[in-house]
């Protein structure tokens, strides 16, 4: 066999295998859409569950997940962005920053159930927030920190050094340089990181299991100290804890959760490409 033939075969094999990657995701989506689409109706989205959750809709869980997503954003974003700015612009390469970076990488590797347990111990019990949106948001917030910090830091570092140099040469302070030249250009990347973090938080079950999720609450939460239902946990409940549950409701719930998470990812993509178009270098 000639080298050229080997090359052709190698490319053929690699591209075929790469194509296989698409299959599972397509199957998952197809499977859930086919089985769940029948359950989706206006009532399904806007009514609370009825009859031991076997009928009615998922409204409290849907709204709860949206609340939790916002709560996570509020808890995680300022911390993550400040940390990313510090690491990228001020920290330099010291022993301390290397430890901080190592910590962030390891934070990303912690299983989500461990975050849940930590949230229970720290926020629910020690700070006495109870099982509440506050405790759940903080737990999810900590869990999303690593991904938001690393993407935000990467976005900040990808801003050309030249912009900083020029800005400093004009007599701007370092903070003005960051505020007016670095952050605006890093923003699309930062927003992408935030939304990716949120889309992960929106779909997580384990961290909210002990910290906020309610088995069944027909009404909406009234304050951040209330429990709430949430889609991932609701899905778990109706799939395992409720006998005689119609299958279409489970898949319908899964479909809504999937759409919510996918739409967050879509928004992230759109934001990024929009802002890329506006500012180019």
């Amino acid at each position, binding site marked *: 066999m000639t080298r050229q033939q080997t090359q052709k075969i190698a490319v053929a094999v690699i591209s075929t295998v790469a194509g296989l990657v698409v299959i599972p995701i397509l199957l998952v989506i197809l499977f859930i859409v086919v089985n769940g689409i029948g359950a989706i109706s206006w009532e399904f989205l806007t009514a609370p569950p009825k009859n031991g959750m076997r009928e009615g809709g998922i409204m409290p869980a849907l709204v709860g997940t949206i609340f939790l997503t916002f709560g996570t954003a509020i808890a995680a974003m300022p911390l993550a962005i400040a940390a990313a700015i510090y690491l990228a612009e001020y920290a*330099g390469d010291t022993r301390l920053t290397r430890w901080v970076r190592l910590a962030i990488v390891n934070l990303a590797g912690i299983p989500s159930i461990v975050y849940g347990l930590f949230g229970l111990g720290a926020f629910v019990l020690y700070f006495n927030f109870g099982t509440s949106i506050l405790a759940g948001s903080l737990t999810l917030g900590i869990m999303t920190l690593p991904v938001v910090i690393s993407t935000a830091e990467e976005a900040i570092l990808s801003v050309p050094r*030249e*912009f*900083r*140099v*020029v*800005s*400093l*040469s*004009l*007599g*701007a*302070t370092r903070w*003005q340089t960051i505020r*007016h*030249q670095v952050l605006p*250009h890093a923003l699309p990347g930062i927003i992408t990181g935030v939304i990716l973090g949120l889309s992960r938080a929106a779909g997580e079950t384990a961290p909210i299991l002990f910290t906020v999720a309610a088995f069944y609450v027909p009404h909406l939460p009234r304050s951040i100290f209330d429990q709430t239902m949430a889609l991932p946990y609701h899905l778990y409940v109706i799939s395992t804890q409720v006998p005689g549950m119609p299958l279409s409701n489970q898949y319908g719930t899964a479909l809504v959760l999937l759409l919510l998470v996918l739409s967050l990812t879509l928004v992230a993509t759109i934001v990024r490409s929009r802002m890329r178009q506006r*500012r*180019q*270098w």
Partner: protein
Amino acid sequence: MENKIEVQNFNFFYGDFQALIDININIKKNQITALIGPSGCGKSTFLRALNRMNDTIPGVRAEGQVLLDGKNIYDPDVDVVDLRQRVGMVFQRPNPFPQSIFDNVAFGPRVLGMARNGNLEEMVRESLEGAALWDEVKHRLHEPALELNPGQQQRLCIARAIAVKPEVILMDEPCSALDPIATLKVEDLMRELARNYTIVIVTHNMQQAARASHWTGFFWLGRLVEFNATEELFRSPKEELTEAYITGRRG
């Protein structure tokens, strides 16, 4: 003629490497001083020592004095931010911010709070006029700066630099990315600017130094070999090394 900058026994190090060795030079007010020499001879390092842009590189160290109007800019009580407002810089590659023409020029006045009592539009206009760019861009101030051609971009960078009303303008091979016509425009502009500013320009191009400057310094391996009025230096160099370089025998 009045000295704007007096450099005395100046040494500069990148870590263990000494990039500048015992530099002594007086830069005259409202004159154009050109620094020539082969790549790596220290002329750009020297230029960046004058507004302490080298400070942004980790591990650098300076010894000796750079007196700006008699005050050493390396004194601990000197604020680099104020220093850089007084000693502006134009870079090798035209590097406007990816923003509008207006925002590029307005950036400095905005961050320095200069626009508070004055009229920002007026300041932008004056700076663009000062950089001989106003007539070409006055109808499209809010279009992206990156749509200008390279020569216009470089003049925009000059406008951006003079918008903060510096006293000295440092130019680091400002024409190396420009075609000959754009280069001549920038040189004309430099002569115009020298009425109000002290200009120090690093250039690879000896014709440019000969054409556009009043004073020329020749750097070689981190030392300032010779410094004289441009005409003198090119007509009758005192050092053999200078002569070899400007006649093209070394470099």
